[in-house]
């Protein structure tokens, strides 16, 4: 199936002759961008001969908006966060992607059934799942180790400063989970004023013990400096600090909130055919699994999650470090983007007022 698709697309490309065989990819740079290069771009070039050019942006969603509005679109495929994909799609800045181009799983399961819920939407095809996790500095807790969200808020038993992302998103959900709300009831509760009050009341209990981070690089730094004993941070950054800098940071998967990133095609992309071909290729289970070996973000396809190998360059399996691994999903919450698209401004305003007050 995959081969035929690539062949036919390649033939189409040849038939048009003059059209340049290239895809311009807009990615994030860093370790994440590297996973795109190694797991997607290089094998794609080798297999199809279509050249992939990667450009980096701080957040590709911003240039997409600018490109489409200026009528000068140079990117064919871009990697954006789920929330941005929803927003850009609603504003008509993205091409719709026909899910029938996606490759089926090895066992023949259709791509749509193979994806986790919400993994493919009108304009978006998920590539990986990252998550916000609780992490503690092992050297700070000699005896009892924190193991639940409630422990994060318990400064009596687990002393020390905390660091959390500055903003309402993630923190309100986490606070409710720490307050004993089961993951699947969190968003229903947050839609009510009482739920929001309850979340803020819980945050109030550690307000004086929190340093608020804004850039993903800050939490590992604050942990390494000994400035904080616990953090609520992106799992990939923590994994990186543990792997490459041998830091004694332990991740507690209980209470993780996961979210997706994936491909979109900006409205009016110059190489639509190649873009679709690239998306089909890179989201094939084998390639998705390969990308997860470079960075600890889980594949959103069930069949891909099962075949993730060792951490690149080591003999250690990557599986246990992925947010999507069964054992880590015990008390996990999928970030509800529709909720945040709606309540983002109100809750952030309230969060900022709460912080300033």
């Amino acid at each position, binding site marked *: 199936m995959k081969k035929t698709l690539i062949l036919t697309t390649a033939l189409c490309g040849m038939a048009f002759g003059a059209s340049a065989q290239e895809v311009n990819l807009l990615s994030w740079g860093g370790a994440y961008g590297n996973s795109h290069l190694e797991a997607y771009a290089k094998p794609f070039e080798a297999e199809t001969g279509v050249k992939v050019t990667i450009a980096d942006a701080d957040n590709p969603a911003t240039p997409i908006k600018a490109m489409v509005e200026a009528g000068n679109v140079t990117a064919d495929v871009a990697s954006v966060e789920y929330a941005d994909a929803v927003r850009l799609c609603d*504003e008509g800045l993205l091409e719709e992607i026909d899910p029938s181009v996606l490759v089926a799983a090895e066992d023949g399961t259709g791509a749509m059934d193979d994806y986790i819920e919400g993994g493919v939407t009108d304009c978006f095809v998920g590539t990986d799942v990252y998550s916000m996790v609780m992490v503690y500095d092992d050297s700070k807790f000699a005896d009892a180790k924190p193991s639940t969200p409630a422990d994060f808020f318990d400064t009596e038993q687990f002393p020390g400063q905390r660091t959390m992302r500055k903003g309402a998103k993630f923190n309100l959900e986490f606070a409710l989970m720490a307050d004993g709300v089961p993951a699947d009831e969190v968003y229903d509760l947050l839609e009510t004023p009482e739920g929001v009050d309850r979340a803020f009341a819980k945050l109030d209990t550690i307000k004086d013990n929190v340093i608020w981070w804004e850039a993903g690089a800050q939490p590992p730094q604050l942990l390494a400096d000994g400035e904080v004993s616990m953090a609520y941070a992106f799992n990939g950054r923590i994994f990186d600090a543990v792997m490459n800098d041998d830091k004694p940071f332990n991740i507690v998967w209980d209470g993780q909130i996961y979210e997706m990133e994936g491909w979109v095609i900006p409205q009016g992309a110059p190489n639509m055919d190649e873009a679709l071909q690239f998306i089909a290729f890179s989201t094939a289970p084998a390639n998705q699994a390969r990308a997860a070996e470079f960075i600890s973000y889980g594949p959103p396809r069930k069949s891909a999650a099962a075949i993730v190998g060792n951490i690149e360059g080591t003999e250690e399996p990557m599986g246990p470090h992925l947010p999507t691994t069964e054992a880590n999903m015990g008390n996990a919450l999928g970030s509800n983007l529709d909720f945040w698209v709606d309540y983002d*401004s109100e809750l952030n305003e309230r969060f900022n007022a709460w912080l300033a007050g």
Partner: protein
Amino acid sequence: MATPLDPHAAIVTEAAGIDDGPLRTVDGQPLEKALARSSRAARRRAFMLVLPLLAFIVITFIMPIGQMLYRSVHNDGFAANMPQISAWFAETKPGTEPDEAAYAALAADLLASAEARSIGVVGTRINYEKSGTRSLFTSTGRQVRRGIEPPYREALLEIDDEWGDPELWGAMRNVSSAYTDSFYLASIDRTRNAQGEIERVEEHRRIYITLFMRTLALSALITALTFILGFPVAHLLATLPIRKSNMLMILVLLPFWTSLLVRTTSWMVLLQQQGVINDTLVWLGIIDQQGRLQMIYNQIGTIVAMTHILLPFMILPLYSVMRTINPGYVRAARSLGATSWTAFRRIYFPLTLPGLGAGALLVFILAIGYYITPALVGGSSGQLISNMIAEHMTGTLNWSMAAALAAILLGGVLILYWIYDRLVGIDNLKLG
């Protein structure tokens, strides 16, 4: 050689006999015209020389600021995509109960907008006014595309009974015109209710006035601190022999030339709980391990780091003014019986005022727009208004709100400048 462009050619008149007509050049042009033409050419040449700079200023400074100011009052996300209901709002008074015609117009607009895929823009705009309504628009848009039958009021209420909410209609009215004051109202913690009256927002959402006040207070404090710390240093630099003062000057200039980010992060190293200062205090036994001071990620961090970073902006103008003060004045005052305090107060200090004014204006205006340092070391209590502007620029993508906040800040700076001009006189400003 006389040419038509040469004004001196005018002295060559055509005929000596004509004395009642205007003076003319050789080729018969009236003198006045020839003169105007030649000076026009000179002016054009001069203008061409400054044209690149003018274009640069217009493109990089005036246009963006103009665009920003425009954005703060103009947002047609709703009005442009929902023309029929906007027209209905324009015809009726605030507080009017929506009738069937209004619902019909709304349904038609929702359908058209959903089909043009602009419903997200509409929803985003209305969500700024009333949170939680974005999905109401997008989901209703999807259902309307599947088909909607009159009567529209019942049909829309069946999709979601929020369509009957007077608050929602008030919000829609607020955004139904492309030009709006709602971003400015929001910048001062105000909003319009369903009847169109201005009222304060709920208590837990009031933030901007607090932040403006804090920004002004912190900036004033930082200006005062840079003055207290910078004045003696500038005086020392100005009175030492030039070789020694040049050496010391390097100590002022080196940090000035060092990247802002480097200086901010070095303050983080110094001030944090496991940092140099706390370690030293613990080692000296002044505080114990548990009592480490929290000097960063709060207002203290912002004040310390910003005072250090802005100090050269106070020292340099002060120094340049102090250098020019003749030491003879103070000596003369002393010889006439003034104590050193009186001589300082009545002679020396007034002479430093132009430098002090320039320094204070520079430091204050830089401080109220400061962004990186408070973001890094400010924690929750050390944030300034610029951090909220950045939040709206990059986080919520509500550029109109960011523009309104920035415009208020800009207005504040201009008022300060005006007051300064009235009190001290801008021509007294000495920067070096």
